[in-house]
C-alpha cells in the first residue's frame, strides 16, 4: 500500500497520477509565492494592507475571488439543482447593485478616511464602543466560520476523493498559515487571483460539454421542464406568490431582503471582501475594482448555476437532500458539481477541477485569516491591549495572529466534527451581524446627524433583533409565518426577511437615539460623511476610463440578462 493510499477510502471520483501531480503543483506554487513575498511584508502597511499598491484588476479579481470559495461553488450548484435558475438571484440582484453601490458611493469614504478596516471606520465615525462591538464580533465569527468551512471542505474531500479528514484539515490549514504569515495580505491577494484563473480553467468545460450534450439552451429548458418544472428556468415570472416557485419566496423578499439589505450588507461592510479594495493603489483603482468584480460576478452562474441545471437534465441518477443521502447512501444535491466534473473530465482535467475546488477553499480561508489578523491587531490589540507598540511589533503580532487564527479554526473544525449542530449555529450567527452593520455604516456615511450613541445602540439592537427572530423560529417553527410572511418559506427566504427586519430595527434605533443625543461637530466628520467630504476627482481622463461609465455598462448588461431569463 502506498503512503497516500493509507489516507484514501471510498470516493466519488478517482484521480490518476497526472491529477495528483496537478494538485501537488498547486500546493508548491502557493508556498513558493508566499516565500517569494516574505521580504515584502516588513511594515504594517505592507503586511496588513499589501502596501496599498494593488492595481484595479488585481484588487477587483481578489475582491471577487475571496467570495468564490469551494463551498460556495458546490453549494450554489446544488441549490441550482434543487431550486432551478432562482439560485442565480444570489449572483445578480444579490450582488451586482451592491458591488456598484460600494464602488460609487461608499468606497470614496473608506478610501479617503485611510482606515485599515471597517471597524476602524466605525471608530472614526461613531467612536470606540461601536468599533469594539463590531471588531470583537467580526474577529470571533471569522475564525469560527473559517473552522466550519474547513471541516465542511474536509468532509467534501472525504466524499469526493476519499481523503482522510485529518489529512485534509492539516495539509490545507498549514499551507495557508505558512503563506499568509510569510507574505501577509499581498500573499493572500496573489493567491486569490491565481485561484480565480484556476476556477475558470477547471470548471468552464462542464457547461461547454454539458450544453453540447443537452443540445443547447432551448433543449435544456425542455428537458428540465419534463424532469422538474417549467418554473425551474424562470428568474422572476414565478415570484408573484410564495407557492408558485420552488423556493417558496415572494419577489419582495428577493428585491428588498436580498438585493437591498443582505447583499448590500455583505458586499459593502464585510471586511473579508472590503479589505481587498482598501489595498488598491489610488481612488480610481478602488472605485473601478468592485466594478470589475461585478462584471465577472455576472458570468459566474455559467460555471456554478448552469452545471446544476445541466445535472437536472443529463445525470442518470436523481439527487436528494443531504439528510436523505446520509440514510439511503445516494448522492446529495451538493454532489452535483463533482458528479458533472467526473462525467466530462478525463485525466488531467479532473485534477484541474479538483485543484480549483481546493484553491477555492484555501483562498477563502486565507481571506478569513488575513481579515481576522488585521482586525485583531489594529482594532482589538492596539486600542484595547497595547497602544504603545512599534510598527515592527504589530507586524510580528500579525504573523503570530495568523498562526493562532489558523489553529483556532482547526480547533473549531474538530469541535464541529464532534457536535455537527454547531455548524448551523455558527452559520446563522454570522448572518446576524451583516444587515445591522450595513445600516450603521450607511447612516454613518450619508447622515451627518447620526451620533456616536445612535450608531452603537442601532448596531446592538439590530443584531439582537436578528438573534431574537432566529431563536423564535427555532423554538416555534410556526413563527415563520410572521418572520418570513409565509408558512411556506424555506430557510433562504427566512434569511432574507430576517435581514430586512433587523436592518429596519437598526435604522430606526439609530435615528431615534441620534435625535435624542448630541451629534459630533461637523469639523470632526470631514472625510467620513457625505456632504462634508470633498470627494477627489478621478482626474481628467477619457469617459471610457471613468468608473461611472463602466458601472453603467454593467447595469445595462445586468438588466438585459434579467429580461432574457425572466
Amino acid at each position, binding site marked *: 500500500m502506498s503512503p497516500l493510499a493509507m489516507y484514501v477510502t471510498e470516493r466519488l471520483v478517482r484521480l490518476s497520477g497526472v491529477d495528483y501531480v496537478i494538485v501537488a503543483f498547486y500546493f508548491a506554487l502557493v508556498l513558493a509565492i508566499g516565500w*517569494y513575498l516574505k521580504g515584502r511584508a516588513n511594515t504594517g502597511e505592507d503586511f496588513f494592507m499589501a502596501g496599498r499598491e494593488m492595481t484595479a484588476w488585481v484588487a477587483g479579481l481578489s475582491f471577487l475571488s475571496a467570495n468564490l470559495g469551494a463551498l460556495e461553488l458546490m453549494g450554489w450548484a446544488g441549490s441550482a439543482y434543487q431550486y432551478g435558475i432562482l439560485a442565480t438571484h444570489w449572483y445578480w440582484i444579490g450582488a451586482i447593485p451592491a458591488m456598484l453601490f460600494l464602488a460609487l458611493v461608499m468606497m470614496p469614504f473608506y478610501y479617503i478616511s485611510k482606515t485599515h478596516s471597517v471597524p476602524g471606520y466605525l471608530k472614526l465615525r461613531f467612536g470606540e464602543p461601536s468599533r469594539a462591538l463590531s471588531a470583537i464580533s467580526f474577529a470571533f465569527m471569522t475564525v469560527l466560520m473559517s473552522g466550519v468551512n474547513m471541516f465542511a471542505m474536509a468532509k467534501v474531500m472525504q466524499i469526493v476523493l476519499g481523503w482522510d479528514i485529518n489529512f485534509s484539515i492539516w495539509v490545507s490549514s498549514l499551507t495557508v498559515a505558512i503563506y499568509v504569515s510569510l507574505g501577509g495580505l499581498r500573499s493572500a491577494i496573489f493567491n486569490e487571483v491565481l485561484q480565480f484563473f*484556476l476556477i475558470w480553467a477547471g470548471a468552464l468545460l462542464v457547461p461547454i460539454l454539458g450544453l453540447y450534450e443537452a443540445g443547447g439552451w432551448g433543449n435544456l429548458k425542455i428537458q428540465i421542464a419534463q424532469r422538474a418544472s417549467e418554473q425551474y428556468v424562470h428568474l422572476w415570472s414565478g415570484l408573484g406568490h410564495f407557492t408558485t416557485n420552488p423556493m417558496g419566496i415572494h419577489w419582495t423578499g428577493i428585491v428588498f431582503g436580498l438585493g437591498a439589505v443582505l447583499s448590500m450588507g455583505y458586499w459593502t461592510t464585510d471586511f473579508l471582501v472590503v479589505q481587498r479594495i482598501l489595498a488598491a493603489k489610488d481612488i480610481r483603482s478602488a472605485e473601478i475594482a468592485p466594478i470589475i468584480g461585478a462584471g465577472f460576478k455576472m458570468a459566474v452562474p455559467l460555471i456554478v448555476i448552469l452545471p446544476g441545471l445541466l445535472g437536472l437534465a443529463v445525470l442518470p441518477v436523481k439527487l436528494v437532500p443531504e439528510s436523505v443521502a446520509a440514510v439511503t447512501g445516494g448522492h446529495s444535491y451538493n454532489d452535483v458539481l463533482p458528479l458533472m466534473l467526473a462525467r*466530462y473530465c*478525463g*485525466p488531467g482535467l479532473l485534477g484541474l477541477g479538483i485543484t480549483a475546488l481546493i484553491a477555492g477553499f484555501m483562498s477563502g480561508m486565507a481571506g478569513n485569516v488575513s481579515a481576522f489578523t488585521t482586525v485583531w491587531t489594529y482594532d482589538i490589540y492596539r486600542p484595547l491591549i497595547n497602544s504603545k507598540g512599534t510598527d515592527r511589533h504589530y507586524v510580528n503580532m500579525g504573523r503570530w495572529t495568523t498562526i493562532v487564527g489558523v489553529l483556532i479554526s482547526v480547533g473549531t473544525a474538530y469541535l464541529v466534527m464532534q457536535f455537527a449542530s454547531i455548524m448551523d449555529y455558527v452559520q446563522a450567527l454570522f448572518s446576524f451581524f451583516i444587515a445591522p452593520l450595513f445600516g450603521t455604516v450607511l447612516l454613518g456615511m450619508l447622515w451627518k446627524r447620526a451620533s456616536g450613541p445612535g450608531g452603537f445602540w442601532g448596531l446592538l439592537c439590530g443584531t439582537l433583533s436578528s438573534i431574537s427572530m432566529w431563536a423564535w423560529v427555532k423554538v416555534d417553527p410556526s413563527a415563520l409565518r410572521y418572520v418570513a410572511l409565509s408558512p411556506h418559506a424555506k430557510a433562504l427566504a427566512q434569511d432574507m426577511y430576517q435581514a430586512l427586519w433587523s436592518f429596519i430595527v437598526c435604522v430606526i434605533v439609530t435615528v431615534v437615539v441620534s435625535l435624542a443625543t448630541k451629534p459630533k461637530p461637523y469639523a470632526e466628520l470631514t472625510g467620513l460623511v457625505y456632504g462634508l467630504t470633498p470627494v477627489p476627482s478621478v482626474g481628467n481622463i477619457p469617459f471610457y476610463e471613468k468608473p461611472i461609465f463602466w458601472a453603467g455598462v454593467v447595469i445595462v448588461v445586468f438588466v438585459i440578462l434579467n429580461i432574457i431569463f425572466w
Partner: protein
Amino acid sequence: MISIWFFIGLSLLVNGALILSAGIYQLVNPPENPGVVFFNLHANVWWGAILFVVGLTYCLIFRPRRA
C-alpha cells in the same frame, strides 16, 4: 518584483502541458473504458493546448526583467 500575472501564466503553462500530455497519451493509447462522456472529443487535448498557449503568452509578456 515578479508580476502576479507571471505566476498565473506559469500555473496555466504547467497545467496545460500536463493536461495536453495526458490527452495525447490517451489519443495514442485509447483506454478500453474511458469513463467520461464525449471521450471522442478529446477535451483534454484541446483544452490543455489552450491553457498551454495562454500560459506561455502570459509568461512571455510578464517575464521577470532586470531593472
